[in-house]
């Protein structure tokens, strides 16, 4: 019987990872094969008077070998075949051919017909049943005496320095304290220290690396090209390792710290080799930035997955989680080791909680409720609610800061609620539950695990975003997921059909040229019957075709998207605009995201517009937005009709143009430059003024967001269609005003105001355009008169 939940979780983790080990018999067989190769090559080199040696490198040397999930669990063993010749005496091609010849002789000397020999780009591979030996040709490195070697590069151009022995020593040093404890641990477990081989007992760091490698294997199962090298994972894990009381804790700490250990030197990601600092293990990321992006994405997913396991209640949920991370077989073996069958557990639901300990066993008092239970919370105390809130938040990988920002509350206050230091008000608990994808009744029933919807929208968005996505953005994306869920629910309550996944009426665009973008912008304007003039209110124009949400994704655009596009399977096209930006930038982002929706949605359901996004696609969307909002023809017409050429160097003229088009001052400046209506010098000079101050001086109202005040009316967050749905639902008595207020995160007062508003007429938009045009004409005349 377990006495501690963490201990049991750790045992399940350890058992899962141990199942990835190769067996004793396999290990001994592999060693005998390696010995045979080693002895044969030694004899071969004796004959050629060169001399040399063969030794283990890589995971076999580090003690982190795991079964290879991509090769039917075949075992990889990496060897160095070092021929003791100076590099001046032999070319790279000759060295490789020489080792190949020696191995060919070795293969021919095997009467049983095994192994077979295959040539790779840099090494030779000996294939046996169930495993293979990769033999890397090498020379001693005279400049790095002792254990340094020189290896061939893929193109046989220059020798590369390497030192697998010193690397293994460095790796081992990271766990020195644990290594020293090993004899005591062995003795405590009744094992003979002298008789137990070193590889048979693994340190926590070795287990951690095995776990990460397997998680990585599964994560990149369909994308082997981008899979990060094992050495990158091993190096970062060892650097991040600071010890810990349990394997689970170490995994959490390592996955939380790993990404931050990738250095960024002038835009180039660097993972330096700890024993050869001049070598960048992530060198390939420079030319293939997608690899870096995918690495960060994976590291974050690993963190979430390992954190998620720790919050599971019920051994079945834990085993399910382990199955996702390490594979079904590993989870089944872990379950059996702990006396539990994953599959039996799934069938019977007879998993129970040990009285007083919280540990999970197969029998005992108080059956754990199946995950479909949503019933009466019974006597759950507020402290349990506090714990459930923390657990639910951590399960979805949201920081306290992200959750607090999303709800507009203080992070410290949330911390008080989660620790039980303050009693959480039930309305706030319900709001938090909704943000976490669950509900108050589930939290109180101890089921914070089962999401209310199977659609993991925020997970999809997180994965599509660059890894630098900040906490505020993560919290806001959870809100977005919640609002989409509410939209679907309300439509269901009202019996309104949902349109399903959105489909663009246009052909997809693959290129990123400004000309293609301008053509696309004109196509969309024609499609929306916008004519050639100003769009008017782009939020409203777009809102008829796309749901537009304005959410506080964060002010730091290094970590927050300016916007994103998402094609929801039931609702169709949605656009989220970061409301923590100036109004002009929000307007530009609407048009930018429309480009993604109408011209990039054929191949992508999610596009997050943020630094680190796909450059070509983003460039296209920017050029599209410029032409969509400020059409070149209209800009030239206005300039020729309303102002002499030289007045374009006057910032006031640019402000008038800005107001005419309803865009930012910066957008007009850029469009004037792009249309060659101003030169680069004028473009730079125009940047010297404060457009908001100038606009105010010219009599224009200035949006608070342009002055850094991003607080908006709560209902501004929602697309018109969502508000219409809420109005209809309240009007029909399907929901109460209080329910509407809770759903929209506002007060009942504001719901009353919403209900009192007259419905929006489509013609208003055109009236608005007329007014703006008249205003511009009036301003222009005033400008001329002065």
């Amino acid at each position: 019987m377990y006495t501690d939940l963490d201990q049991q979780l750790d045992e399940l983790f350890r058992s899962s990872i141990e199942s990835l080990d190769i067996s004793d018999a396999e290990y001994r067989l592999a060693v005998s094969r390696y010995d045979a190769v080693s002895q044969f090559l030694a004899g071969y080199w004796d004959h050629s008077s060169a001399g040399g040696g063969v030794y283990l490198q890589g995971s076999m040397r580090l003690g982190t070998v795991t079964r290879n999930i991509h090769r039917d669990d075949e075992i990889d063993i990496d060897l160095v075949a070092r021929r003791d010749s100076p590099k001046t005496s032999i070319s790279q091609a000759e060295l490789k051919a020489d080792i190949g010849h020696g191995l060919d002789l070795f293969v021919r000397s095997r009467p049983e017909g095994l192994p077979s020999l295959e040539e790779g780009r840099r090494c030779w591979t000996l294939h046996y049943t169930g495993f293979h030996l990769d033999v890397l040709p090498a020379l001693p490195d005279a400049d790095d005496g002792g254990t340094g070697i020189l290896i061939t590069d893929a193109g046989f151009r220059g020798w590369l320095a390497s030192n697998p022995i010193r690397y293994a020593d460095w790796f081992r040093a990271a766990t020195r304290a644990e290594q020293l404890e090993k004899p005591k641990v062995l003795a405590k477990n009744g094992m003979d220290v002298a008789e137990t081989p070193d590889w048979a007992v693994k340190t926590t760091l070795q287990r951690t690396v095995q776990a990460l490698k397997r998680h990585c294997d599964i994560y990149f199962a369909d994308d082997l090209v981008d899979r990060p090298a094992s050495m990158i994972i091993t190096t970062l894990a060892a650097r991040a390792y600071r010890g810990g009381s349990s394997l689970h804790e170490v995994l959490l700490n390592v996955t939380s710290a790993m990404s931050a250990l990738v250095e960024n030197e002038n835009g180039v990601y660097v993972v330096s080799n700890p024993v050869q600092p001049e070598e960048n293990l992530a060198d390939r990321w420079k030319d293939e930035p997608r690899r870096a992006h995918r690495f960060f994405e994976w590291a974050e997913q690993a963190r979430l997955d390992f954190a998620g396991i720790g919050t599971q209640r019920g051994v079945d949920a834990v085993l399910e989680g382990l199955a996702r991370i390490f594979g079904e077989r590993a989870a089944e073996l872990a379950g059996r080791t702990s006396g539990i069958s994953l599959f039996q557990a799934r069938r019977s639901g007879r998993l129970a909680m040990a009285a007083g300990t919280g540990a999970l066993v197969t029998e005992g008092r108080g059956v754990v409720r199946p995950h479909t239970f949503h019933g009466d919370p019974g006597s759950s105390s507020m402290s349990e609610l506090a714990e459930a809130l923390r657990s639910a938040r951590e399960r979805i990988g949201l920081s306290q800061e992200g959750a607090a920002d999303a709800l507009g509350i203080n992070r410290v206050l949330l911390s008080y609620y989660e620790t039980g230091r303050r009693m959480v008000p039930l309305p706030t608990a319900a709001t938090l539950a909704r943000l976490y994808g669950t509900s108050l009744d589930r939290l109180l029933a101890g089921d914070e695990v089962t999401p209310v919807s199977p659609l993991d929208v925020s997970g999809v968005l997180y994965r599509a975003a660059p890894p630098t996505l900040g906490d505020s953005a993560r919290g806001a994306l959870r809100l977005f997921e919640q609002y989409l869920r509410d939209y679907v629910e309300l439509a269901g309550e009202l019996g309104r059909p949902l349109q399903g996944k959105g489909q663009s009426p246009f052909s997809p665009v693959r290129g990123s040229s400004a000309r293609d973008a301008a053509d696309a912008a004109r196509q969309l304007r024609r499609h929306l019957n916008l004519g050639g003039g100003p769009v008017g209110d782009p939020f409203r124009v777009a809102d008829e075709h796309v749901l537009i949400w304005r959410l506080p994704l964060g002010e730091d655009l290094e970590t927050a998207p300016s916007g994103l596009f998402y094609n929801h399977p039931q609702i169709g096209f949605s656009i989220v605009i970061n409301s923590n930006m100036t109004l002009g930038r929000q307007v530009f982002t609407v048009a930018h995201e429309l480009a993604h929706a109408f011209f990039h949605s054929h191949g992508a359901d999610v596009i997050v517009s943020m630094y680190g996004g796909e450059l070509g696609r983003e460039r296209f969307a920017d050029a599209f937005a410029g032409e969509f909002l400020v059409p070149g023809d209209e800009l030239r017409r206005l300039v020729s009709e309303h102002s002499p050429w030289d007045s374009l160097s006057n910032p006031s003229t640019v402000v008038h143009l800005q107001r005419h088009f309803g865009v930012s001052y910066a957008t007009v400046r850029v469009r004037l430059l792009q249309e060659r209506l101003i030169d680069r010098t004028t473009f730079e000079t125009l940047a010297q003024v404060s457009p908001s101050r100038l606009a105010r001086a010219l009599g224009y109202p200035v949006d608070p967001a342009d002055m850094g005040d991003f607080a908006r009316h709560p209902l501004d967050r929602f697309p018109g269609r969502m508000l219409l749905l809420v109005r209809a639902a309240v009007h029909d008595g399907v929901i109460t005003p209080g329910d509407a207020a809770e759903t929209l995160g506002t007060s009942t007062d504001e719901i009353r105001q919403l209900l009192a508003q007259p419905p929006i007429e489509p013609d208003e938009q055109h009236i608005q355009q007329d007014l703006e045009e008249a205003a511009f004409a009036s301003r222009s005349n005033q400008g001329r008169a002065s």
Partner: protein
Amino acid sequence: MLFDASVARSVAVLGWVDEAAQAVGGSLRLAHGILGAHSDELCELRQIRDGIQREVDASPPGSGRYSKAVSAVLGLDRLLGLGPPQVTLVMPDAQATAITVRLTSMTADARAWRRELGMRARRLDTGEAVSIGIAVTQGFDFASDDGQALVAYSALTGRAEVRTRNILKLLVDQGLIDEAVARDRYRFLQEDDLHLLGGPDW
């Protein structure tokens, strides 16, 4: 008597919190969540107050709407700053929490139960629900302007519904407010474009 956010708001914006407290026995009871236990806590009355503050910010100073909004904010600020004896914050116990959950849960069982109570809407908001949970378990009268909340409360307790109108009548009955003034102020709450209370006539 336990007040929901709407009725508490009504007496606050009219500046009659003290009178209302006196009329209901000395203290106006509010559920945790309708009122915060601490000044930094999110609660419904603060949300209402902040919403009206937005009206203040959006209205031209000196305009009628501006003046009404400022007056309402002042009244709500006073309520938010009050403690015992005028205002008593009530925390839900396990039983009240259980009722809250049943009044808000979207499970089929909970919805069927609410239909049996006579409710038509899909659920109550958590603020109304926790207020009813507390009122039911502690035997308080319950004042609300939410028709569905009153349906649920009456079905659970058999007690009569109490709205803002009833509270104002109580003030009149106890001689705390002149009836003409109360009628006028009630119509103001019902019809004014800032307050939009609606509900039955006096």
